[in-house]
């Protein structure tokens, strides 16, 4: 053997006390912004609700319904954001959970008209969570395109259930009911459409507060960790399979609540509302808005509602025939998506946060 010019272990220096250094060093890192996260998010939500109240008070019924539409889509996309943006599981079946919520709500109102609205919403959320648990558990071992494929089946298949049981679920016409209007005590202050917008936004903001608190805290860290590196996440003590299913359940609960809101606003639940297109539009809008942030979900909800409005107006202005007119909004949406993603690969939120030096560190790229 070659001669050794350094003796083995015996001459190693004595152990250095690392923790002592740590104790005396200054604490780096910003403190979290003021107060409890729930309080902080709650204040944001109250401000948003006040803004919605002012907006709907200043405008007419058409805008009221569009504002309500933005609110419920915001909730749906925010739920999808947790699943896709945070936990990295691509789902093409989010519309199916909205279907579950809408039909739970409609069935309750049709069969048990005495049930209060809040209980209907809670029931819809619970039904969605159960559906999410079933789907999440069944697909827990699937990743990437396989998961997308399995959830695609759900989006295609579930609305057909309404056609299969026409007596219970109303078939292609769906279930229509008389939506609960503004309470009599407020009849002078708010009209029915305004009331509906406020109800939807209240539900949506409660959902968003929970989603924001979950995403910014431990659960969000767990999900982002398993999205980035499942092996390292597991070695850090995160039960990867259970965390994936949890993400599915929360996301489905939010989607279902959004579906219940939609049924409440429209006064009906029809299978065609929750067709495959809806699931695809939700996912596409999420990419357009920006993955990984609740602001991305906000831009996505605005895009879903107002791009369709613009597309419909364009179709009317061009005086196209019915077939083209019905499909133009979707085409228009696709075109907007392509343009935005070409211009800003990280979506509207990514572009805005890069613009406003949102972070002191270089912005991340290639985030899924």
């Amino acid at each position, binding site marked *: 053997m070659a001669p050794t010019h*350094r003796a*083995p272990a015996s001459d190693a220096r004595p152990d250095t006390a690392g923790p002592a*250094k740590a104790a005396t060093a200054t604490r780096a890192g910003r403190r979290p912004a003021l107060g409890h996260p729930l309080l902080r998010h709650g204040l944001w939500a109250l401000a948003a609700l006040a803004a919605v109240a002012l907006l709907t008070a200043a405008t007419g019924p058409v805008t009221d319904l569009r504002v309500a539409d933005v609110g419920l889509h915001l909730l749906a996309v925010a739920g999808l954001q947790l699943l896709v943006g945070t936990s990295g599981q691509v789902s093409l079946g989010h519309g199916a959970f909205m279907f579950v919520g809408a039909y739970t709500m409609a069935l309750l109102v049709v069969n048990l008209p005495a049930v209060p609205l809040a209980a209907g919403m809670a029931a819809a959320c619970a039904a969605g969570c159960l559906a999410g648990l079933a789907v999440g558990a069944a697909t827990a071992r699937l990743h990437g395109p396989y998961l997308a494929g399995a959830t695609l089946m759900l989006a295609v298949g579930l609305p057909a259930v309404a056609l299969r049981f026409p007596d219970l679920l109303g078939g292609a016409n769906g279930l229509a009911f008389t939506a609960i209007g503004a309470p009599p005590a407020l009849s002078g202050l708010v009209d029915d459409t305004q009331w509906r917008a406020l109800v939807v936004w209240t539900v949506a903001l409660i959902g968003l507060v929970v989603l924001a608190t979950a995403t910014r805290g431990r659960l969000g860290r767990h999900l982002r*960790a398993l999205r980035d590196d499942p092996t390292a996440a*597991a070695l850090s003590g995160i039960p990867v399979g259970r965390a994936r299913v949890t993400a599915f359940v929360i996301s489905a609960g939010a989607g279902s609540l959004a579906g219940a809101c939609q049924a409440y606003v429209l006064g009906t639940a029809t299978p065609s509302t929750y067709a495959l297109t809806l699931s695809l539009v939700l996912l596409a809008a999420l990419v357009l808005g920006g993955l990984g942030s609740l602001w991305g979900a906000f831009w996505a909800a605005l895009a879903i509602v107002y791009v369709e409005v613009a597309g419909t107006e364009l179709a009317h202005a061009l005086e196209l025939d019915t077939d083209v007119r019905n499909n133009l909004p979707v085409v228009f949406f696709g075109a907007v998506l392509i343009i935005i993603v070409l211009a800003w690969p990280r979506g509207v939120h990514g572009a805005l946060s890069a613009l406003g030096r949102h972070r002191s560190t270089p912005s991340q790229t290639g985030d899924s």
Partner: protein
Amino acid sequence: MDGHVLSVEQLTVAFGGLTALDRVTFDVPHRSVVGLIGPNGAGKTTVFNAVSGVVRPREGTLRRHGRPLRRHRPHHLPRLGISRMLQGLGLFPGMTVLENVMVGADPLATGGLPGMLTGLGRAPRDERRVRERAEAALHEFGVADTAHALPGTLPYGVQKRVALARACVCSPELLLLDEPASGLAADEVSELAERVRGMRAHGSVLLVEHHMDLVMRVCDRVVVLDFGRVIADGTPDEVRADPAVERAYLGPPEGDGDLLAPDGPEEARDGR
């Protein structure tokens, strides 16, 4: 708490017809550094995978303080006081350095799902504990100034320290290090050696490493694997003098070098 931190007894792992580990037996005593060396493909990482519950052994027992580990899964490791630093570091690229280490400190949190959803109950205290411990670990490993950077923007040596901080943040009783010296400069290897020896103050280290200088400097015992079998087990000096080890590394006699000597090619490069 009798017995060794880890006892590997007759561990046999097979993938289909290929026997990756064949009746491997060795101990990691309390507060010691044990090196696990051997040529490529000898089964070193498979030992780590079996210990961390990633692969199931076909036969044999793993004992922690004399008690067998049965059907444990990777996410049970922190609870068992075992931590593993992955060869490829396994840092989360979309999370800041602080968040990466906070994930490592997460076993300190005790709250459940309702708290995580609402931020109520134990959640704020959990969050504070996890954050404070993670910040302390960042200071300990000298990477506090990078707390809000993404790992991908940092030099490799710094990333390595972050990974080490994440593995050590919960003061594990047994730390599994998979080639911690690869890609490090000479001064960084010396610092690493000091840290590894320092870890004996709190627990034990099982070290897979090709950097022989580091192995010989820090290990109390060295276990040599070749083709899935233990061919030597002893102090660094005993192992270095073992003819079977030399054969395993160099093939039949009349080789013209000595890979086990500390002044291998890496030392030559580092000397520039």
